[in-house]
């Protein structure tokens, strides 16, 4: 009896309230909301559906409150309120007008009952309600939530939203959402086929579970269609995953290239094992940190330019440190490579400890300028801007260095000294000076690498140590004394690493790569691109 009355009341309210706005709508809404207070759990769905049909934006906070269990009914008169708990009392808000309605003790109110079924209904209702929201972001979110937890009952809402939607991105999402919901609804098979086709075209990881769950409930005519779609999506997914791995590999390779390219100069061209190379990278990263600190405090507007300012500074700082190292220590050790290795290791310890004393042992925060943060989608690939910029930067550094070595007088002198020191000296080249400049150049490039690495790695005194072994591996693998070898070595090691990772895990993959390199060196002790001729035995 009560139930019939209630239904009649609904009909009445809907009839009168929906088309009209203003006071009468408000009254209608209030009746609907108050009805929630009396409803049984089993009737909750109907009540929520009725609320949703009003399309009133005020329903959103009410439903949210219901879902979170913050909707209470006053025992005295059955009025329903949005509440906020504060101690033993509840702060009440009128659900319709949104005005404060004072406070009341908890005992005077009873909570509107919710269970998981109700919560699910609330979520669906909220999804379809916000689909029509004037705010683009809210619509996008709503479309996504429908897509993630599709519900056949929301189909109508999705379709009406689709009819009204103008924004391209939201439309695309809505179409997918419609196809998804359509598959689980009781629409005719023809429409479903259309939906499968659409999902297949769009592809994407989300489509897989939708289609496979639809496969279970689909009838015979639809099954082959869905299976074909699944297979095709899986195939493209695998392709994209491989592509993503290549991308990660390129990204890792560019990092390795940056770290190793300075080493290729000092080790490859001069034959000096600089164990402090990683610390040069670290100094470059700390230069970036200092530049950003100054900019943040004094010229916040220039923050986006911080890396452009830090690059030449880092080059100068680490170049100067390298020059001092060469003049102060290394030049006395030429011809004794093992001793050079030990001395530079000692210098690396001193540099690390100095930085630790000055800046502290903890990680320092280096921010990303706006043009380096965020990501974009390219087909099925997610590409972050900072990785992209680092790849481009590494290639630019490589090209510049190649140009310097091949086309400038300084490069000519450097190559001459490498190939035949005494002959170069007797032709009037100041070989000690060339040595010093070459070493400074290698160190300076390491500093610039540090600027780039500060964007993707933790800036701490140990930053350099993580790269030193990897960069040695790159140079040794690629072949000493050949920049192209370094390039190929860096990218092939990067990609190999990332392809091993899914099968072997990150650590085991790295171990495998190390073992492979050790084996490789047995086979070709001079690396991929070995120098031929007299330079070999030098």
């Amino acid at each position: 009896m009560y139930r019939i009355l209630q239904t009649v009341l609904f009909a009445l309210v809907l009839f009168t309230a929906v088309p009209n706005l203003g006071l009468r709508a408000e009254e209608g809404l209030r009746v609907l909301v108050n009805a929630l207070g009396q409803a049984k759990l089993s009737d909750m769905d109907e009540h929520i559906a009725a609320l949703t049909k009003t399309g009133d934006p005020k329903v959103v906070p009410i439903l949210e409150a219901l879902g979170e269990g913050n909707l209470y009914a006053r025992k005295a008169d059955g009025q329903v309120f949005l509440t906020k708990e504060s101690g033993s009392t509840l702060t009440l808000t009128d659900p319709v007008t949104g005005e404060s309605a004072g406070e009341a003790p908890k005992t005077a109110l009873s909570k509107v009952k919710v269970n998981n079924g109700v919560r699910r209904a609330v979520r669906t209702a909220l999804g379809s309600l916000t689909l029509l929201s004037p705010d683009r972001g809210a619509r996008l979110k709503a479309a996504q939530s429908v897509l993630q937890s599709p519900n056949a009952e929301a189909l109508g809402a999705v379709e009406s939203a689709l009819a009204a939607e103008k924004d391209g991105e939201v439309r695309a999402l809505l179409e997918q959402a419609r196809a998804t919901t359509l598959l689980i609804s009781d629409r005719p098979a023809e429409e479903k086929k259309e939906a499968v086709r659409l999902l297949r075209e769009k592809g994407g990881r989300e489509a897989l579970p939708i289609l496979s769950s639809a496969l279970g409930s689909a009838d015979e005519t639809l099954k082959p269609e869905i299976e074909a779609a699944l297979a095709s999506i899986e195939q493209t997914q695998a392709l994209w995953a491989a592509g993503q791995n290549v991308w990660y590999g390129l990204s890792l390779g560019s990092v390795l290239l940056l770290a190793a390219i300075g080493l290729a100069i000092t080790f490859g061209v001069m034959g000096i094992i600089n164990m402090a190379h990683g610390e040069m990278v670290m100094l470059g990263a700390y230069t970036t940190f200092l530049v950003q600190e100054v900019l943040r405090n004094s010229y916040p507007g220039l923050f986006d330019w911080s890396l452009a300012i830090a690059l030449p500074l880092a080059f100068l700082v680490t170049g100067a440190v390298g020059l001092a190292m060469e003049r102060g220590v290394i030049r006395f050790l030429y011809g004794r490579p093992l001793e050079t290795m030990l001395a530079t290791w000692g210098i690396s310890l001193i540099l690390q400890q100095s930085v630790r004393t000055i800046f502290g042992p903890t990680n320092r925060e280096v921010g990303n300028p706006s043009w380096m943060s965020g990501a974009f989608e390219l087909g099925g690939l997610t590409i972050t801007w900072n990785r992209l910029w680092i790849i481009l930067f590494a290639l630019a550094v490589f090209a510049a260095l190649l140009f310097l070595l091949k086309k400038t007088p300084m490069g000519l002198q450097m190559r001459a000294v490498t190939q035949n020191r005494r002959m170069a000296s007797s032709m009037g080249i100041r070989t000690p000076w060339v040595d010093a400049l070459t070493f400074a150049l290698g160190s300076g490039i390491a500093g610039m690498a540090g600027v780039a690495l500060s964007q993707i790695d933790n800036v701490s005194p140990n930053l350099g140590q993580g790269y030193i072994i990897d960069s040695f591996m790159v140079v040794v693998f690629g072949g000493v004394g050949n920049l192209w070898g370094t390039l190929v070595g860096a990218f092939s090691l990067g990609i190999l690493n990332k392809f091993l990772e899914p099968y072997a895990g990150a650590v085991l993959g790295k171990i495998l790569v190390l073992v492979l390199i050790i084996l490789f060196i047995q086979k070709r002790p001079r690396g991929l691109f070995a120098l031929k001729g007299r330079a070999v035995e030098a």
Partner: protein
Amino acid sequence: MITSFLIKSLDRTILVVVAILLALALLIPALNLMTAPDHPLHVPTYLVSLLGKYLTYALLALALDLVWGFCGILSLGHAAFFALGGYAMGMYLMRQIGARGSYGNPLLPDFMVFLNWKELPWFWHGFDMFWFAALMVVLVPGLLAFVFGWFAFRSRVNGVYLSIITQAMTYALLLAFFRNDMGFGGNNGLTDFKDILGFNIQADGTRASLFAASALALALSLVVTSGIVRSKFGKVLVALRDAESRTRFLGYRVEHMKLFAFTVSAMMAGVAGALYVPQVGIINPGEFEPGNSIEVVIWTAVGGRGTLIGPIIGAILVNGGKSIFTAAFPEFWLFALGGLFVLVTLFLPKGVVGTAQHYLARRRAHRAASGTQNESGLAEPMAAE
């Protein structure tokens, strides 16, 4: 044959050092165990363990000297052999805990119970027996060095390339031992030992015995290495260090000789690690840290490479300095160590012992006025290349 080996190996300096080591092996435990704690000559137990630790380091440095000082192989991965020997000993000690672990499992060590493993991995079998573990202490590092060296020397990887790949080797092992599913305790390593050969590992007597064992092992290794480098074989080793191609052209199988020295050296490092672990009570993957191996090189360099007793003195000096320094000015230890690397390579390329021998030889030559043979000339390393 053995007597001739011994006679050749024991020249005066070596004999003196061996005698000192044997005396220490008796004296320190005696002073620790037989004097009252307030006696002025009493050696507290922590000091016994500390000195024992230095002796194992000295053994490691001696092992490195055999390959670096006499073969010209600068291994930057010797700490890996040390750690492997240590792990073999650690596994024995773990099995000795038995059911006294916090989980009380009679078979599985605590960390395996924690990882929810049901049975002992195959490579843990046999480590409940001391003789097996002792064999593994020598075999595992030896085998690794043999395989690694066989590949490396056969394809003539030498000089800095060899150094870099030995460093890569220890780095790879570091990463591997950090993994929990390797079955070696992961990050935490092996610790919480209770017994060794049935004796309580914390007891004063055990500590003193371990010290004595370390001193004996060092003395024995010193005699063996000295015998090796003073034999005809050792002379060829020095020859290949100074002019590898020439030695090869003379018909010696250079790679075989290097491989022998490298393997023996790795085994010695393994023994050092095995003695180290019960005295410090823990072994973890940090021992594989590439920096550790390089530190061993500096001990050897400070003492003097190619002198055999130099590395022993160097290891004790540097580590003693480290203990004092890190207690007094912890901030500055790395500065001091880094400075040591630079200063020793620049100003003391022969190390303390090498330089002292050099001066002694010069004075003797001066006194004799006519040029007598320099006895220690054999061991004096030339600048590479």
